[in-house]
């Protein structure tokens, strides 16, 4: 606690949420500043890379948080809770727009693509587009698990809490998603092996 006020940047998410429930506007702003990029990126990944839709969902999520802060369960980590809320919002969006997106994906498949070059020199932009395309074809739970794990870098345990399932289920989803994507994206199969030392240590 600072002498002339609270240093919100040093407070934990859960403590900030306590202050938000009491009506502390600065605490709410601190939470927004802390999570808006990650949540926007998550929505962007989950919602077919639609930036406008991702922004709308981000605004909706924080508006819900502002209007009903009591809905937050203090016994859960805030990050887990907020991503579970975001995931539920994405599921609802999937129910509404799955038909439209399937049609759009079908149209995109007809576009001629430049063959990617495998290995280290792969075009990352092209890879991301293909990955998003393939992710859109996945089951929403598998896609959300994949995005949380590899884009948001969330621990397995938090993902499991967010989904309300076991850690084994999360690991299994990740494994079979990787296997399926590797099968569908053979064009990016490395001709050259990934050099030693480039692989990063992952969080358990």
């Amino acid at each position, binding site marked *: 606690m600072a002498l002339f006020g609270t240093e919100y940047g040093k407070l934990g998410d859960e403590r900030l949420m306590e202050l938000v429930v009491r009506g502390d506007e600065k605490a709410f702003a601190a939470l927004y500043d802390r999570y808006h990029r990650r949540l926007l990126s998550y929505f962007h990944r989950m919602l077919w890379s639609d*930036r406008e839709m991702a*922004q709308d969902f981000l605004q909706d999520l924080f508006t819900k948080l502002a209007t009903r802060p009591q809905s937050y369960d203090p016994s859960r980590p805030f990050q887990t809770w907020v991503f579970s809320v975001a995931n539920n919002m994405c599921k609802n969006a999937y129910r509404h727009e799955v038909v439209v997106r399937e049609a759009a994906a079908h149209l995109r498949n007809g576009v001629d693509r430049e063959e990617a070059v495998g290995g280290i020199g792969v075009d990352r932009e092209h890879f991301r587009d293909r990955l998003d395309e393939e992710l859109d074809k996945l089951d929403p739970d598998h896609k959300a698990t994949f995005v949380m794990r590899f884009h948001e870098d969330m621990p397995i345990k938090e993902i499991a809490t967010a989904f309300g399932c076991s850690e*084994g289920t999360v*690991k*299994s989803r*990740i494994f079979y998603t990787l*296997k399926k994507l590797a099968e569908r994206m053979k064009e990016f199969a490395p001709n050259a*092996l990934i050099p030693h030392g480039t692989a990063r*240590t992952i969080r358990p």
Partner: protein
Amino acid sequence: MERHERYDPEDIESLLSERAFDELLPDERAFVLRHMSGRDEYERMRALLHYVRPDERERGTIEPEDRVRRNVMAAFRAQQQPQWRIWLNSIALWLAPQKAVASPLWWDRLWRPALAFGSLALLIVAGVVAVQQFGDTDTPALAELKQEEKAPAPATAKDEAAVPEPQLDDAPAASGVETERSMAIPAQATEPPAPVREMEVADRYAESAGAATVNTEATEDFAAIMDVALEPDMKSQSGATFQSITAEQAESLYHVVTANELSRNMSTTNALGEVAMKEAAKTPSRKYKAAQPMATSRSMADSPGILDLVASGW
């Protein structure tokens, strides 16, 4: 030292991230080959995992627009402030819109507030005039004197009980006729008579029961009759203890007698039967004929001959 690790297929992510296929230990390789077709699939998955992990510089490159933050914070503020403040803010915004305030021309700034306040004043004046002209004139004023009810409801036992009882002990001594009409007899002969004014009680009762139905003459007659009737009893019971009669007891003892009741009175006070005779003369009906023998017997008792005969026989 030999490693004894047990892998689950879910743990293969760590192997993919950390080791190439050639770097796997025999146990790890055996485990991988149980869940994958071979080296190629392992390397494909490893490469995919490598590329799907974004770099730090790639993460969070998407920035939301400023309007998102503004809207979110506005929603939070709106949720926190009371509703009446929102209402007042809307009123203020209606009276002085931001666009008008920002205008350099004075008329643009003032015409809307002036119109709003003028309209409000006009509405208030119109409302006051309408109330004065077409308002409810029957509504009594605050200090208006209400008329007494002319036809009160007949007195009930409850109403009678509501008649204020006189303060027997502290009431001032009755004077004049009131003393004569008093039915209270002092407990001790030497003590002054208790200032119980039963007639006042009767009068109050009569007033509460309705002044229009009370025959004041009958009341006075009743008082006189009661004096005559009680006098011998008082003499015969001189020295006896009489308790003061309360208002409730007085009500049970007597009531205001009307003319019709007097005409049918069978007590000794009506021994002469004068009232009954007068009534009979006025209305010679079957009812009177039925009551005539009784009146005749009273008149016989009045004759001195018969009285002497009865006295001698007694």
